[in-house]
């Protein structure tokens, strides 16, 4: 094997470490503020899901399954699956995980949809964002668990931060694609009547791009759920932590129960959010 010449040495790692150092010393207050906002939101969601008793939430999900997915059978299946989670003894942890997922999705959409719109409006923004999004999706997620930990300490906040970074690309991409593929004549018609860019966006582009945006929401939600499990490694309570504990104790059965509960949440969330993208 021919060795790569040692004299070519770009010290990226050192630079990034130095950058992190700088950020931590100079922007500490900024990260504290962000962390505070994230924490408030996730706590609010958690409060709601922990407050709702199981005998109200299960029928609500059943109803959503029936009305949104369109088949009463789906509603029944959803209810049975949730009862299964309860029977494993994971109801509370499942609710914490759910709150974490929904709060992460909330922030992802808050950032992702406006960014997607901006990306659709300008080719330059698109060419800048495209590689960043690729990196966010392909970078092994552990890589940003560590800086998240450094910025926000242990707990829910860094887990959510990492989750948002991991889960936001699909909704940005699909908002962008959805708006760019809206019928050109519908946009032109709106413009021809003297619509402002804002009117074009809200009257034509967003409604017509809605199915595509909803696919993005669906994918973002699924990725958030996958990441929340990883997030338990840095201290987010929930089903993921249970999996982690089971693995460390080599308790296969318990690990399987916790894992199955995550799968059940995933299936229900997927079917319900997917139904939005199919409806007109």
């Amino acid at each position: 094997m021919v060795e790569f010449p040692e004299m070519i040495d770009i010290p990226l790692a050192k630079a990034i470490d130095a950058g992190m150092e700088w950020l931590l010393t100079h922007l500490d207050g900024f990260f504290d503020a962000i962390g505070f906002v994230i924490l408030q939101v996730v706590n609010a969601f958690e409060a709601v899901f922990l407050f709702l008793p199981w005998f109200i939430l299960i029928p609500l999900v059943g109803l959503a399954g029936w009305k949104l997915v369109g088949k009463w059978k789906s509603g029944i299946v959803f209810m049975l699956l949730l009862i299964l989670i309860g029977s494993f003894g994971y109801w509370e942890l499942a609710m914490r995980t759910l709150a974490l997922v929904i709060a992460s999705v909330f922030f992802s959409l808050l950032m992702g949809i406006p960014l997607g719109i901006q990306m659709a409006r300008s080719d330059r923004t698109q060419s800048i964002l495209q590689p960043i999004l690729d990196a966010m999706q392909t970078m092994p997620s552990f890589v940003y668990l560590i800086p998240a930990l450094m910025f926000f300490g242990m707990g829910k906040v860094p887990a959510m931060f990492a989750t948002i970074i991991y889960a936001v690309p699909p909704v940005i991409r699909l908002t962008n694609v959805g708006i760019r593929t809206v019928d050109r004549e519908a946009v032109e018609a709106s413009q021809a009547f003297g619509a402002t860019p804002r009117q074009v966006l809200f009257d034509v582009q967003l409604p017509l791009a809605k199915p595509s945006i909803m696919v993005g929401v669906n994918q973002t939600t699924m990725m958030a759920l996958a990441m929340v499990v990883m997030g338990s490694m840095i201290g987010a309570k929930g089903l993921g932590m249970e999996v982690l504990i089971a693995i460390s104790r080599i308790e296969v059965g318990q690990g399987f129960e916790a894992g199955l509960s995550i799968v059940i949440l995933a299936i229900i969330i997927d079917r319900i959010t997917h139904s939005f993208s199919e409806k007109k």
Partner: protein
Amino acid sequence: MAERNIRNQPSEDLPVRKDEPQVLIKDLWKVFGRDPKRVLKSDLREKSKEEIQKKTGCILGMKNINLSIKKGQFYILMGLSGSGKSTLIRNIIRLVNPTAGSVIINGQNVTKMSGEQLLQFRRKTFGMVFQHYGLLPHLTVLDNAAYGLKVRDVPKGERYAKAMRTLETVGLKGWEDYYPGSLSGGMQQRVGLARALANDPEILLMDEPFSGLDPLIRRQMQDELVELQEKLQKTIIFVTHDLHEALKLGDRIAIMRNGEVVQEGTPEEIVTQPADEYVQEFVQDASPAKVLTAGSIMEPAKVLLYAWEGPKTALTLLLSNKRKAAFVVDKNHKLLGVAKDESLAKLLDKGEYIEKIPQSSIRTVPTVSENTILEDMFSIITHNPYPVPVVNDDGRLMGVVTTDQIFESITPAEGDENG
């Protein structure tokens, strides 16, 4: 800045007289690609579309277009795909911005307008109809028709009242609560037309509005548009690639090729005097019978009888001209009908003195107006042995058209046989 303000005064201050052009297009260029201005600055501007593309990678959309469109005119932009006709209509409303040149509408330079001015100008001046309708699938037919008014912040009640009226005009009453997706193509385009008319625009822009419809529906929509235009008298700029449509609808036609206007004129001029081989090819299968009018080929009547003349005088006149019959007019030159030598002779046989040709000896005949196209005269000449009289609105005899003249003018000129 000051100059710009003067130029862009509201149109109320600059009323357009009927004979003045409402839309004036001056030296308009569009080049797509990187740094398009460099093409115009260099000597490349004289080169063809292919050469410009080869040398610079830029695509020439429109080359030095100059057109003048009068108020109330039905103006056709015709050409094959890629000829620049759709680009041109989009430049007029600045859905596409020209590279150079100007579009002046009602005396205002549209190309110089700022964003807000342009929005206001579009709102009050234009209605536009698209090839694939451009409707909003998530809104009902009524909301679609009212969309242009919604953009202008017209209150809901007034908006719907106006939209209902235009929906009625286009024959869609009763469909207002449906969604466009459940309508046929022809009906969707009616919604598009209603939407464009709801604003009561001065200028209607139509980009191949009927190209996506099947032939029967297309013809029907064309007929209805002609009828509607008779009532509304809008300025219509209409893009098509269909020559028959152009000839049927247009007051004037501009034929485009590779971004240039190769000929501009009335349908008759285009068909009878094609400017070059391209236009010639375009029009060769166009029947002159659909274009030429009675007024354009009529000749003065050679023999005329006057109602106050006696039968004897009339008969003498016919005999000396070796005619069997002639048209009779009154002292205002109004056509009364045709008198035959037999019936005149019969009157004289009775031996009575008759002062003037009696009504009973005059037979009425079918007449046409100067605007009647030759095709519509075929049924008259097959049932009628006389030349066809051409009369104006007051019934005055303007000229006559003989069967020979009709066939002569619809037969292709010599030299065409090779081409």
